[in-house]
């Protein structure tokens, strides 16, 4: 009988504990086996997909951390003498009017720059929460088995059945003043199941390995076995799923803001700006184009990173 509840992600994810390949021509010392991590890193550096996405993500992180380096304009200051129907001045690099103005006379360039922070914080925040908590639950269920596994797996099934975006909408609808942390909490509350399932499967594969038996025979404590022996060998598929999920959390945040259920109007968010743009899309398409473009570019960067990491960690794809 097949595992009854597999997700698409699990199917494509590498099975844990790929045998460390013997050193190849480019390896460190001849004959010395390289760890999976070192092997993956060597693989990654040669992948143009990874290099492009890493540069893009580094750039986005810098923009999110220091937006004032890129624009002197205040993203929330509206100047109604600047009309939103005026075409953007595409020659005015890094000037407030580079991408034109929105319907309240705010610089779209400044808003695009400052909006990066929300997307990155939500994406990274949800991913960290989900990976830590979901991963921990998955480890407990996979390692201890028995009653733990039954309870945690049923709980996972239950949460997996709740539609992700819809559930987040219901949770967020209850809060009147929503902050980045409310959005992160709501998305993490509904999104942890995928990581738990992947981690559980990987731990079950790893826990019967000889090195685990050996460690136990040597008297290693449960926590030492779990964190020093099993975790490093089970973490690869989790990293892959988490990287790809990061992009989808960014999309989820902007979708919620677009629907008016994400961040309030005081926060600068691409999704909220796209919502504003819908009323003027016919006469002022630049209101839509720039935030949507940046949003898509950010998601693209993380999806490409996830693809590159998957290729590096999955021995089947070599």
């Amino acid at each position, binding site marked *: *009988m*097949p595992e*009854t*509840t*597999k*997700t*698409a992600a699990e*199917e*494509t994810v590498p099975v844990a504990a790929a045998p460390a390949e013997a050193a190849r021509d480019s390896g460190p010392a001849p004959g010395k086996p390289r760890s999976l991590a070192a092997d993956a890193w060597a693989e990654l550096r040669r992948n143009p997909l990874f290099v492009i996405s890493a540069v893009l993500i580094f750039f986005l992180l810098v923009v999110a951390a220091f937006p004032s380096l890129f624009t002197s304009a205040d993203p929330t200051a509206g100047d109604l003498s600047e009309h939103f129907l005026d075409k953007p001045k595409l020659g005015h690099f890094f000037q407030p009017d580079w991408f034109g103005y929105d319907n309240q006379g705010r610089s779209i360039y400044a808003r695009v720059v400052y909006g990066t922070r929300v997307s990155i914080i939500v994406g990274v925040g949800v991913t960290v929460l989900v990976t830590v908590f979901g991963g921990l639950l998955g480890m407990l269920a996979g390692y201890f088995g028995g009653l733990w596994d039954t309870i945690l797996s*049923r*709980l996972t*099934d*239950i*949460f997996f*059945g*709740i*539609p992700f*975006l*819809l*559930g987040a*909408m*219901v*949770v967020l*609808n*209850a*809060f*009147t003043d929503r902050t980045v942390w409310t959005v992160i909490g709501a998305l993490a509350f509904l999104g942890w199941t995928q990581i738990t399932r992947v981690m559980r499967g990987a731990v079950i594969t790893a826990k019967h390995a000889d090195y685990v038996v050996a460690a136990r025979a040597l008297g290693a404590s449960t926590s030492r076995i779990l964190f020093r022996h099993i975790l490093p060998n089970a973490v690869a598929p989790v990293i892959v799923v988490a990287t790809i999920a990061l*992009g989808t959390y960014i*999309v989820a945040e*902007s*979708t919620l803001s*677009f*629907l008016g*259920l994400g961040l309030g109007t005081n926060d600068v968010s691409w999704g909220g700006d*796209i919502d504003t*743009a*819908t009323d003027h*899309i*016919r006469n002022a*398409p630049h209101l*839509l184009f720039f935030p*949507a473009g940046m*949003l*898509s*570019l950010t*998601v*693209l960067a993380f*999806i*490409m990173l996830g*693809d590159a990491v998957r290729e590096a960690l999955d021995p*089947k*794809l070599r």
Partner: protein
Amino acid sequence: MGRYVARRLLQMIPVFLGTTLIIFLMVNVLPGDPVAALWGDHPPDPAQMAQIKQERGLDLPLWHQYLNYLGGLLQGDFGSTIAGDRPVLGEMADAFPVSIRLALMAFVFEMVVGITLGVMAGVKRGKLIDTGVTVFTLLVISIPVFVLGLLGQQVLGTQLGWITPTVRDSMNLGQLLLPALVLGSLSLAYVARLTRTSIAENLRADFMRTAVAKGLPRRRVVSVHLLRNSLIPVVTYLGTDIGALMAGAVVTEGIFNVQGVGNLLFQALARREGTVIVGCVTVFVLIYLVANLLVDLLYAVLDPRIRYA
């Protein structure tokens, strides 16, 4: 086979109860009083509010309310809306046929185009068409659905005039076409990627070498031997997707003014109509559970080695 299905159906019960309980709690525990919302921005009249709560059983403890709700469900009663006291079942009966149409159109689109693209790319791995499909799927995944919807509406509807920008008749298949394409686009990209990976992996399998060595025509090798063996992960994805398409249609239905479940839910959220939300999600969960069972039964059709005792 019969015993397997019976066991799976029994296993569904705790999951179903758990999911409805969670969504029921999410709707009721979180702040915001739907009865107070009847008064809008005005302060509610306490006596009237207490009376309405008593009539609807909303003054009972939460576990009692949940049991009442479950009891109603068993008799096919989804409760009634707080404003207007209309039966939720009637509201859903208006909205679900629209969403099912939309979701089925999106489903057929993503399945046919997605698998075709995936096979084309997987068979010619590393060639131009593979790169093309990969870039296309990356772009489709990166552009959020609501941006895609707005762009499609603007370009095809307003500027070119090929379609009506918003849907006037929600049961008209022609008008639902663009919303369905937009709705199915993201899953299409995932289906294409899954198919491509799976096909590329199976290309090296022993049964492929045998089939080629037997001298079978290439068309038959690909369409029967390769495709059938590569479809299991794709079928798994498609199975969970049919419910996700309906639940995820909130955005698409909003943009194109489709009067489906997404629209119903969005309005219910704004008016804090908990019974409508719980009712719709309950149906989604049922669809998801049944689709999962069907997928597992389909495995046996695709791979005769899988048997259900």
